[in-house]
């Protein structure tokens, strides 16, 4: 792996993470966090951690954003 690849992956993760944390609309944030999850998985692959990358795809890019979307949907609908 080259130096440049690691720097690019790390930078993307840093930028995407910042964007997730500072996007104050939860619905958009859920989509962004899914993208962030994929980018993290890419970084983990670059760092030679395929096991972690696989989990991250499942949990960070699918499971958690799905739960967030469902929560947002429930909250938008309101109690009645």
């Amino acid at each position, binding site marked *: 792996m080259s130096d440049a690849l690691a720097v690019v992956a790390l930078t993307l993760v840093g930028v995407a993470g910042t964007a997730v944390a500072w996007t104050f609309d939860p619905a958009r944030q859920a989509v962004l966090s899914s993208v962030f999850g994929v980018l993290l998985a890419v970084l983990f692959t670059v760092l030679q951690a*395929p*096991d972690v990358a696989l989990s991250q795809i*499942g949990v960070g890019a699918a*499971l958690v954003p799905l739960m967030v979307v469902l929560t947002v949907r429930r909250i938008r*609908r309101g109690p*009645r």
Partner: protein
Amino acid sequence: MSGRARLVVFVLGAAGLAVAFVFALGGMPPFGGSEHPYRDLAVAAALRHVTPNVVSSVNFDQRALDTLGEETILLGSVIGAAALLRLVGHEKERPERAGGRLPDAIGLGCYLLLPVTLLIGLDVVAHGHLTPGGGFQGGVVLATGLHLLYLAGRYRSLERLRPLAWYEFGEGASATAFVGVGLAGLAAGGSFLANVLPLGSFRELLSAGTVPVLNIVVGCAVATGAVVLLAQFLEQAIRITGGAGPGSSG
């Protein structure tokens, strides 16, 4: 505190921590260095226990107690979320409406994908000690695969495949099985979670002793746990109505 005061306190704290962290970075070994004492020990130990996937060896053999703790966290959260999202007072399940509104082609695609995903999930679990993957990853794939049915707009068929009480049973049974493997190690090998099964030969499916067993146990725990968790949120988002009762609209 007002928003401004909060921000001032936060910035002071964050700045202080950042300064301390930068100081600390001066003492860090450079990125990508070759000195990893625990790695050397762990790789040797994994090879001694004929486990080609060293990460699995660390998770399920060398540091299996961490994984037991982690499975227990999952169990606790599943129970906790179920308890927190239980129906109270005059909350009711809404009469079911039609499923999602995806085009039929996509719905069909999701349907067809289901068995493929389940097979991949099982494969990832079963080969966890040999190739990347294992109980966590396979379990998540299995649970997510099942929810393709929701995407396919067939919430009712998902529910048929998902008698939640049984999944809760499965979750409890997996945790008990993990402890059981640990106790078997205590009885047969003299220490909790000892790898007491025959180790087999390198890169064989039936090798590495208890590692594949625990992989399967964790696969069950993660799959059932994730299904129950998602189910709670799906119920909340789709079917539960609070307050006014069945007359309310969505």
